[in-house]
């Protein structure tokens, strides 16, 4: 892990680690500290009358956690799940949530100086959920604010059933 060692000596700027993943041709990143684990795709049980991007719930070692499909959330073209489909398990405010993405690519060190403000992306992704953009080498990575992304009302509250 020589890269890690050399990066460690680089002082002065705040460096955060991001787990990056792909959705279609785009690369996204979430803070590694929010990531609990990465799982292959397993059976998801649909939940009635929830927004389409909530795919359902899955069994994570005896705990039932909701699973969110980011393609659907970002209004991208849906893709059938296959053996490469990956679920990133994140912890957001004490809740454990699975996030379906196309594939996980890398863990990147991103210095604060590398992060730029979000340009106007048009309708593609909701800018509210984006913490910034980072250029790492040749790559442009969209850094997601997972807290905001998964705290939308439908994830946390429900108008009373009665």
């Amino acid at each position, binding site marked *: *892990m020589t890269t*890690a*060692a050399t*990066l*460690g*000596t680089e*002082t002065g700027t705040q*460096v955060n*680690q991001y787990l990056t993943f792909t959705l279609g041709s785009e690369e996204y990143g979430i803070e*590694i*500290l929010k*990531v*609990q*684990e990465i799982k292959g795709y397993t059976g998801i049980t649909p939940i009635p009358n929830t927004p389409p991007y909530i795919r359902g719930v899955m069994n994570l070692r005896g705990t039932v956690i909701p699973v969110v499909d980011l393609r659907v959330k970002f209004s991208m073209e849906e893709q059938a799940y296959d053996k490469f489909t990956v679920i990133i398990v994140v912890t957001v405010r004490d809740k454990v949530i699975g996030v379906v993405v196309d594939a996980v690519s890398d*863990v990147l060190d991103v210095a604060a100086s590398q992060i730029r403000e979000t340009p106007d992306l048009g309708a593609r992704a909701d800018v509210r959920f984006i913490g910034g953009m980072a250029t790492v080498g040749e790559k442009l990575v969209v850094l997601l604010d997972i807290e905001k992304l998964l705290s939308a009302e439908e994830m946390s509250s429900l108008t009373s059933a009665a």
Partner: protein
Amino acid sequence: MGRTALIVDDSVSIRQLVSFTLREAGFSVIEAGDGQEGLHKLDDGRVDLIITDLNMPRMDGIAFIRNLRSRPSSKYTPVLMLTTESQASKKQEGKAAGATGWIVKPFHPGKLLEVIGRVLP
């Protein structure tokens, strides 16, 4: 001169978390996935601190710690074990093998640094 720590754990996420925290605190970090790999990495030079998990494939933490204490280069190096609340007996075993202290999982990064402060001048 910066200090170097070796972190040995088969769980990548724990390793990442520990490395991340240590690097934030100014350490250079070397990582290994089990005891054998850990010893191998130590052949390249001395480190200031070793943090190791106990349950690992190939060479577990206890054997690893015993091995460390038998090598001149790591005889007095502080060694912290990563334990869980339910591993009280393992903890004793680790202490007997020569571990300096322990960190109970799950831990907060701040707690980790606090414990390190206790074993490193």
